[in-house]
């Protein structure tokens, strides 16, 4: 039973094909328990991630966005994550002016062998998003709740948990 069952928020994860997607897979093969709020989108390289992907996800109602790539110096394409790091750091500084807590977006590095680290990253990021609660953007845009569970009335949620 996932830790946060019944109170899921929606988190989008952009994972690079060569390291972090493999890391998440390793965690799965190792049967490490993980919260289930994250939906993974596989990209060829963290350098492929246009900061606007993150903005689009957040404006679309995601409660959090996580980007994960190969560790610096380990990029399959040598320098993709170095460019990504600068862009994503700028984005991180910029998002709060929109009215988004800086913690709603994080980026990190997980290698294909680091199943354990992936478990740690996804768990602590999910907890961080739950501490922040649903994105203010959802309320402002009147976006529907993102899971069937959270669409239930309070009582229903408790019943489900």
């Amino acid at each position, binding site marked *: 039973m996932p830790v946060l069952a019944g109170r899921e928020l929606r988190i989008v994860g952009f994972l690079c094909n060569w390291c972090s997607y493999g890391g998440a897979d390793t965690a799965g093969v190792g049967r490490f328990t993980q919260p289930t709020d994250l939906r993974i989108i596989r990209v060829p390289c963290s350098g492929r991630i246009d900061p606007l992907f993150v903005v689009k996800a957040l404006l679309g109602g995601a409660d959090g966005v996580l980007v994960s790539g190969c560790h610096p110096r380990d990029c399959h394409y040598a320098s993709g994550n*170095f460019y990504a790091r600068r862009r994503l750091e700028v984005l991180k500084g910029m998002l709060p002016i929109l009215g988004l807590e800086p913690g709603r977006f994080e980026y990190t590095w997980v290698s294909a062998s680091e199943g354990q680290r992936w478990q740690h990253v996804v768990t602590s990021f999910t907890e961080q998003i739950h501490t922040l609660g649903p994105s203010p953007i959802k309320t*402002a845009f009147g976006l529907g709740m993102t899971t069937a569970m959270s669409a239930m009335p309070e009582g229903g949620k408790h019943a489900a948990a």
Partner: protein
Amino acid sequence: MQPLEDLKAAIKEALPGLDFVIGWESGWNPLLATPLFMYAPEDVDKLTWGPFNVNNPATYLSALKGKKVGVVVKGCDSRSVVQLLQEKLIRREDLTVFGMPCTGVVDATKIARKVGDLGMISGAKRTNGTLSVTTHEGSLDIPWEEAAADKCLSCQYPNAIISDHFKGDPLPPTLGRDPAAEQLAALEALAPAELFAHWKDAMDRCIRCYACRNACPMCVCRDHCIAQTRDPHWISQDDTVKEKLMFQMIHSLHLAGRCTECGECQRACPVDIPILALRRKLSSVVKNLFDYQAGVDPNAVPPLFTFQVEEAKINERGW
């Protein structure tokens, strides 16, 4: 005004070797000069300089590839020229830059709020600390701080950063208030949900005319702007705040480390949406992270065009 006469003489002298020179002439309204393209000496006689030369003529440059052009710039405009050169979007050898020291330009929006309607203004004149405007109801004296563009109150580059012909005595930086920074600080003091509500409210007025983009000297994709492509379809044609805000984020983020804070985007907005705050924020983020200010050093590499293996100020594992 002797420096202006000297400048005109310099332009006339340079004209035979150029396709044209861009500057300003008096506009339909005494408050707003209009861009002037000088092809012949008679055109040069129309050139004006002063508090109404608001537009940034550097906006035209990136579309003029292959032409030999001259451009008359204020200090802030010259930063756009420098940034365009840094990004190799224009060629230094094709460009002749003319400049004079600048003592600031008006903010028509501020003045419109005072007189009600810009169309009623029949005359405008600046004398040191005052802008006097004439309407059919009489004349109104506005203290310069209340008439000037925000950027001019704390202008750090009143003289062209690069120029081939500079006339007049260079001015020191202006040490006044920085209202744009104050505005940004006020926004940043809001709680996230309130801040988002502010943008929702502000962008609700947006008519998606894209004037903010078109006036921006550093927006160079033109017909290839991703705001209008269908493949990929970044934003739809829906008239929703979400799409409009997405467009502002596209514009802002595409200007990261490139925006020279000339303010043309906000000035061009027909419904006065305070979008400059987004750019100001980005510039301050870039400044803090990379000690970099756009458009001040022709030889610098913009920070997002490069990287360091060890980044001095990025702590990517800090969360």
